[in-house]
């Protein structure tokens, strides 16, 4: 179970596999192939790794799945920040298990991406070099214990909205990974809400802590659904391929409609003076989203972009000698077995 990946493999091997992944692009895609593929997608058939698929479909999936995997991995950091300071042993155990689950999600997702012909080591390199994106939400700091509650409630809550439809994604390995992940995310969401509830019903100081966390996490959570539909580059094609089932704005609205009443139940105030119930539409309407902030965080200017990447790089660099030792040891054992 505890194999080591990454640097232990000679770079040539990684490169070779990588090229293998891109091989289909060498053969021209005929309109007939594309039509047959779209017919299968339209018929809700699952596309499996060995099936023919358009190169753009493959690349879209690699980009989306790996970004998702990176988000799980970077997402371990803000909450991991409170493992050593969790205020009870039960909370400590639950938080360790939660952060561990997120690492597990990263692992399933890297495996799903690997079925498309790209190596995990390559994807990790892209994360560490800063070339790959991950969810901007994890570039915000966790300043108090209430942030752990707010992340579970809002960030895992938003992740569920995004991910439940992906359980029906046309690409089989991604859909199956997501079924497993969604079960755990809803558990995380309930745990986070329970932390918020305990704080909201606690002392004055605890209530203030909970409100402050909501103030800081509300808008970043709203932005987790990505740019609004008019500005989103990838939506239409992804919907045709049934990688996406709903637009960013549709998912965002679902999240708002579910979450506002939860905040009311907690007795907390959503930090949006323009928030109102639109009777005719049957939805909550929110004030304007600060897309400049979103773009700035994406470009690396969020409060913790530097710290998050540095932490990943430091862990990876400090582990170099360990990965080398594991590879050398495995090679010695293999040589002994062959002798």
């Amino acid at each position, binding site marked *: 179970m505890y194999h*080591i990946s990454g640097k232990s493999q000679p770079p040539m091997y990684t490169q070779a596999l990588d090229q293998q992944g891109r091989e289909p692009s060498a053969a021209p895609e005929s309109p007939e192939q594309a039509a047959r593929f779209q017919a299968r997608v339209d018929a809700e058939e699952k596309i499996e790794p060995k099936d023919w698929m358009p190169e753009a479909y493959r690349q879209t999936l690699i980009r989306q799945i790996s970004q998702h995997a990176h988000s799980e991995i970077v997402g*371990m*950091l803000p909450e991991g920040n409170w493992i050593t300071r969790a*205020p009870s042993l039960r909370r400590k*155990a639950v938080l360790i298990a939660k952060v561990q689950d997120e690492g597990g999600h990263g692992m399933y997702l890297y495996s799903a991406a690997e079925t498309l012909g790209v190596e995990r080591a390559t994807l990790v390199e892209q994360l560490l070099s800063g070339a790959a994106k991950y969810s901007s939400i994890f570039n915000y700091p966790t300043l108090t214990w209430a942030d752990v509650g707010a992340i579970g409630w809002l960030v895992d809550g938003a992740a569920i909205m995004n991910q439940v439809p992906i359980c029906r994604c046309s690409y089989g390995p991604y859909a199956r990974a997501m079924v497993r992940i969604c079960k755990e995310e809803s558990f995380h969401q309930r745990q986070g809400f329970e932390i918020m509830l305990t704080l909201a019903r606690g002392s004055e100081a605890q209530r203030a802590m909970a409100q402050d966390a909501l103030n800081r996490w509300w808008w970043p959570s709203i932005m987790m659904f990505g740019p609004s539909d008019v500005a989103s580059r990838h939506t239409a094609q992804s919907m045709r391929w049934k990688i996406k089932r709903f637009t960013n704005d549709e998912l965002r609205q679902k999240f708002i409609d579910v979450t506002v009443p939860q905040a009311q139940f907690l007795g907390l105030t959503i930090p949006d003076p323009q928030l109102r119930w639109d009777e005719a539409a049957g939805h909550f309407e929110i004030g304007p989203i600060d897309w400049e902030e979103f773009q700035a965080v994406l470009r690396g200017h969020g409060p913790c972009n530097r710290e998050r990447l540095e932490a990943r790089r430091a862990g990876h660099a400090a582990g170099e000698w360990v990965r080398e030792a594991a590879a050398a040891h495995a090679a010695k054992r293999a040589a002994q077995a062959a002798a």
Partner: protein
Amino acid sequence: MSAPDARVRYLLRLGDTSLVLGQRLGEWVGHAPALEEDLGLANLALDFVGQARLLLSYAGELEGSGRDEDALAFLRDAHEFANLALAEQPNGDFGDTIVRQWLIDTWQLQLYAALSTSTDERLAAIAAKSLKETRYHHRFSSGWLARLGDGTPESHARVQASLENLWRFTGELFAPDAVDEAMAAAGIGPQLAGLEPAWSALIDADLKEATLRRPAPQPFPWHGKRGVHTEHLSHLLAEMQQLPRSLPGARW
């Protein structure tokens, strides 16, 4: 010391060792050499925090003054902690963590096997559960000890140095005091000296596999289980206890 006091003391030693080690392992989460090790270390952390909760809850109940697992974990000062000094040693690099873990795992294999036949049935049940976990911990730590010891020249040198550094904390494992003797007399705990041969044999076997040298025995000035700690423990507790102490009486 009365027999009930000795038993509470004894349970605190076991519980505090698990808690402090669990806290150290928790520091790794998100920062390990690879994702698999991150998950593996988190697993270990979870097991140790779980053991600590069972042991401290039981100690609190026996003590009978209304302290639960959290009061014991968060509201005692360093000198009241009774963990082995080995458990509180800093994580250092991955090799330091593996050596610390392996020394404790090899020890707990003997200890929990003995305690699973304790005349104290509740302790025996906790020990039996912990023994299963410890077998898995030992597979993890001895596996890594072998990879690092018999890996590259650099990893061999690094992990040998970790071993030389941490070996001085093993003396405490087999040095009985009045509490240990009272527990052995009551059939609650083992004679510590009786555990040493099997531990020593396992240490030698694992070291051979890892191509590492066993350091010479060293005198030790720490008695963690009597509350005499290294400088590291109070820092660990300052971090761990800060929040509950900042809002006394709050529920979390």
